[in-house]
């Protein structure tokens, strides 16, 4: 599904986020990207979300070279992904329901369909009863679950998460990871960047360890 083919991203100033990286992820896989900060985890995800473009090499998604997509095709490409962020990026002045419905409003769905899907997504993360609350009224763990609901509400085939448990204590982190695992069970391909090695060991699964912008080793 995803193939990084000798991809290099050089930032202005000469620093390389990833160097000649090669990586393949099959549909339906759950892959943890680990490594120190600066190892290239976030750069890899940015290249997938087209927040950055590769300097060299190809980023293929379902056989399509997304690195070469024209500017105007970016919105559609991003709508086909689900993204989860470390700081969850919820809008503080909107209710949970409104936050989760944003991708569907952007996609131009009808109101009834939006309500149905948002409630289904909130139900999946166990927050159906909090739909009218503001993000501030929720705990950090709950906020991240709202972020995940927003990422899956558009039914993406691929979900990418950048340090989704970075702000959470171990118990909540495990809870979030279990949630990812469950979503992966229904067929969503997942690429999760984290530096929490202990948690990854505990969960098991494919682990890609990055170092200095390259894949240093892999574990299954």
């Amino acid at each position, binding site marked *: 599904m995803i193939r990084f083919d000798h991809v290099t991203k050089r930032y202005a100033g000469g620093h390389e986020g990833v160097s000649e990286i090669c990586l393949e992820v099959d549909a339906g896989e759950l892959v943890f990207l680990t490594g120190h900060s600066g190892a290239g985890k976030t750069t890899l995800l940015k290249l997938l979300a087209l*927040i950055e473009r590769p300097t060299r090499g190809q980023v293929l998604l379902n056989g399509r070279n997304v690195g070469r997509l024209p500017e105007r095709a*970016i*919105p559609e*490409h991003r*709508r086909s992904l689900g993204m989860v*962020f470390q700081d969850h*990026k919820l809008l503080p002045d909107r209710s949970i329901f409104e936050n989760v419905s944003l991708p569907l409003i952007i996609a131009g769905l009808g109101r009834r369909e939006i309500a149905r899907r948002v409630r289904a997504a909130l139900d999946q993360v166990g927050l159906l009863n909090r739909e009218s609350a503001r993000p501030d009224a929720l705990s950090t763990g709950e906020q991240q679950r709202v972020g995940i609901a*927003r990422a899956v509400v558009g039914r993406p085939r691929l979900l990418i998460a950048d340090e989704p448990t970075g702000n959470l204590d171990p118990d909540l982190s495990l809870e979030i990871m279990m949630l990812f695992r469950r979503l992966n069970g229904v067929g969503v391909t997942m690429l999760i960047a984290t530096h929490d090695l202990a948690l990854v060991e505990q969960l098991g699964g494919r682990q890609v360890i990055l170092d200095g912008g390259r894949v240093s080793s892999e574990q299954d």
Partner: protein
Amino acid sequence: MRLWLTRHVQNCLAAMGRLVHKPAGSLLTIAVIGIALALPAGLNVLVRNGEALAGGWESARDFSVYLKPGEELAQAAALAKSLSANGNVDDVEIISAEAALAELQQAGSFEGALTGLDNNPLPHTLVVRPRADAPANELAELARELGTNASVDQVRLDTEWVERLNAILEFVRRGIWLAAGLLALAVVVIVGNTIRLDIENRRAEIEVAKLLGATDAFVRRPFLYTGFWYGLGGGLFALGVVLLGLTILGGPVTRLSALYGTSFQLQGLAGSGALTVLGGGLVAGLTGAWFAVAQHLTAIQPKI
């Protein structure tokens, strides 16, 4: 298609909702826009009234021909007859020296002075009323010719001040267009700056929307609607200001014109004028919003 329309209506109402949500700031902006629009609109109304006033006087382009003292009344009658034959002349009235004196005596205040006189110092006079469509230059030529007539002492052409007034009005009208242009530019800048701040305040929201795959059009739309409402609100405010001004000035103007024995009514903004103000406000509002959006939205790119 229906969904598209629904979304536009939602955006439109949401933009209004945001303005209503912070009334103080919105009203202030709308008031500034309204005043900027009201200035040229109000001046335009004044000029239109000036034109109406000048138009009412323009038909009264009569001119007086004073004969030399001592000329016979018959001479005046002969001159009047030849003038009546002129194609530009509608009517000629002869005011004999005696009639003029009698009128003067009736007017009163000169009585003492007049009774002391041995003989009538006044000349016979012709009052020439030109046709309404007589060209001004031909009238001037006629007056000049009359001036060279041996029995004529002096010709008084009273149209000069009307022409001067018209020239002044034309000058003022140009000035208003200039002012309107500058003020419209000011409205564009005001709306542009307000929307720029609005964009800055909603930066997080824009970033998230772009991360979730929002198109530029999607992100742009609410701000354009905000500009639309600012423009419309400003236009309505301007109309209100002009109406208020007309109401305040209407009474005194009617009284003043009654004192002059005329029935001049202050003219308001016609329907087309009101539409111009509203349309101008809308165009300026949307233009300002467009500039702000074009400049700042593309600069906001999401980061993770």
